[in-house]
């Protein structure tokens, strides 16, 4: 129980061509400052702060209604925060010109709990996997090559591209959703409960795949999950949310191994 130090994960160089548009020094890949959100006069998220370096991963833990998914959407810039800022590569994503944000978008991708969230049931999956690439200046041939590449990266045969989502099992569909997210060579993937819709015997496959992507490609993850062992395997840092507030955060091994807040202790006790 000593191997979980972040230092054992050297930050890999950002090597992919799609990331070369980033000009700022990547002191932080993702930074969240005083982030808060209100819906219809009700505060759902309050005063969230954290920083992720390139290659580092964060687990967001909490029960339903804790604000996990709101935080995920804010990090993805799918909605505007009421308070605070979200910085991608040190720049406020909600203050940058639309064109600039559009250029950065492909580098932050999302994987949902239900793979159908990113696979259109009426499309051959190759089209779904390719869709994020349409915004990039690539030739059709390059796009097809990239689709084959990411399908291979998630352990699927190239001819998978020709089939429809319903022809795959739940685990294979989650692989497809991950392949789609990988297509644009993102540096950050936000995964909202990526395992919980899967059969237990298949969860470990997806867990192993995500860990391999971190190691091989240096991808950072923000994993929203109530699955604490999965957070321990995937994350350097952990943030515990309750009622929209961060009650505890720190190195994942410390938060899960020696929780300080009674609420975190409670969550862990439920697993004993």
């Amino acid at each position, binding site marked *: *129980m*000593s*191997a*979980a130090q972040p230092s*054992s*994960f050297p930050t890999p160089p950002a090597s992919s061509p799609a990331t070369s548009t980033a000009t700022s020094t990547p002191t932080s890949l993702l930074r969240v400052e005083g982030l808060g959100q209100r819906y219809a006069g009700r505060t759902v998220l309050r005063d969230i702060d954290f920083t992720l370096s390139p290659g580092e991963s964060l687990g967001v833990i909490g*029960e*339903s209604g804790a604000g996990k998914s709101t935080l995920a959407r804010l990090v993805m810039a799918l909605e505007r925060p009421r308070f605070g800022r979200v910085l991608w590569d040190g720049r406020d994503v909600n203050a940058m010109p639309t064109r600039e944000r559009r250029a950065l978008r492909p580098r932050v991708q999302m994987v949902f*709990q239900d793979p159908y969230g990113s696979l259109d049931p009426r499309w051959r999956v190759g089209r779904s996997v390719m869709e994020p690439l349409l915004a990039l200046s690539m030739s059709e041939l390059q796009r097809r090559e990239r689709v084959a590449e990411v399908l291979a990266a998630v352990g699927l045969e190239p001819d998978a591209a020709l089939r429809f989502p319903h022809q795959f*099992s*739940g*685990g*294979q569909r989650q692989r497809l959703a991950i392949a789609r997210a990988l297509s644009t060579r993102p540096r950050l993937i936000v995964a909202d*409960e990526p395992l*919980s*819709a899967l*059969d*237990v*015997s*298949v*969860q*470990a*496959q997806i*867990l*192993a795949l995500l*860990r391999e992507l971190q190691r091989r490609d240096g991808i950072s993850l923000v994993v929203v999950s*109530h699955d*604490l*062992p*999965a957070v*321990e*395997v*995937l*994350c*350097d840092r952990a943030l515990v949310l309750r009622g929209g507030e961060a009650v505890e955060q720190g190195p*994942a*091994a410390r938060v*899960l*191994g020696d929780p300080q807040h009674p609420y975190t202790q*409670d*969550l*862990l006790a*439920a*697993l004993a």
Partner: protein
Amino acid sequence: MTAGPDAPLLDVSDLHVRLPGRGGASLHALRGVDLRLARGESLALVGESGSGKTLTALAVMGLLPDGAEAGGRIAFDGRDLLALDEDGWRGLRGRRIAMVFQEPLTALNPLQRVLSQVMEPLLIHRLMPDRAAARERATSLLARVGLDDRQARAHPHQLSGGQRQRALIAMAIAAEPDLLIADEPTTALDARLRVQMLDLLRELVAERGMGLLLISHDLALTARRVDRLAILYGGRVMEEGAAAGLLEHPRHPYTQALWAARPRLGAGRDQPLHPLKGNVPALAQLGDGCPFAPRCPLATTRCAAEPPRFDGRLACWEVSS
């Protein structure tokens, strides 16, 4: 007609269910399920999607889908449930056999206060002489599951998910059933909430001498909270036994693989992961042999061709009891 004191409350033997499939084909969904449950005992039926766990529960409730054909025997307190007509079911379902469904919001009537919904089974089954007595009894049942007077007078949407689940449990136990069937939610419900519900069910079972049949996909969560476990895969029981023993010494390769595939809390970020190969088979893909054979590290040609017999503990050609 009741069975002797030693007879199990629920005795399922060689239960087969065939479901109508596409183009007139029939899908052999349950392929000889054996289960035994005594009064005061809790049994978790653990399986992944398509394993047949929910179908088994529906068969015990007499709620199999239209066109389903059941074979074998389901004895409840000595009575063969498969031979029962709808009239026979009326005195049993909701009265002696009750179910806690996994969707508290759809299982509760949104227009009716929680208290009236708990009173309903008491009045329908004429268990209380009048409304006042039913109200008193329902109030005490709700208090027992942890809901106060104010929550009892609330409508379902005014309660949290956990409180609604408690209300459903109060409804299910109102008629003092002998057998309680609880279908565990498979969606991302908080682990803590699920544990609280399991603990409550377990207390009620001990207190009232009911039998509890828990349907779950989560071996890790249920294993330490029930007396016995039955592991289902591809419509067959792969392994069955006392929960403690089964956890410490899982014998069946499927149980072992399921157990090994879980990441361990405290084992660190670099802990080895042991994913199972392949996918859970679809019903239509199941062959005649052991359903786990295509993913099993020990499988031989015999495993793929011939189903292993369940000997009361295990169904495996390569590992014996």
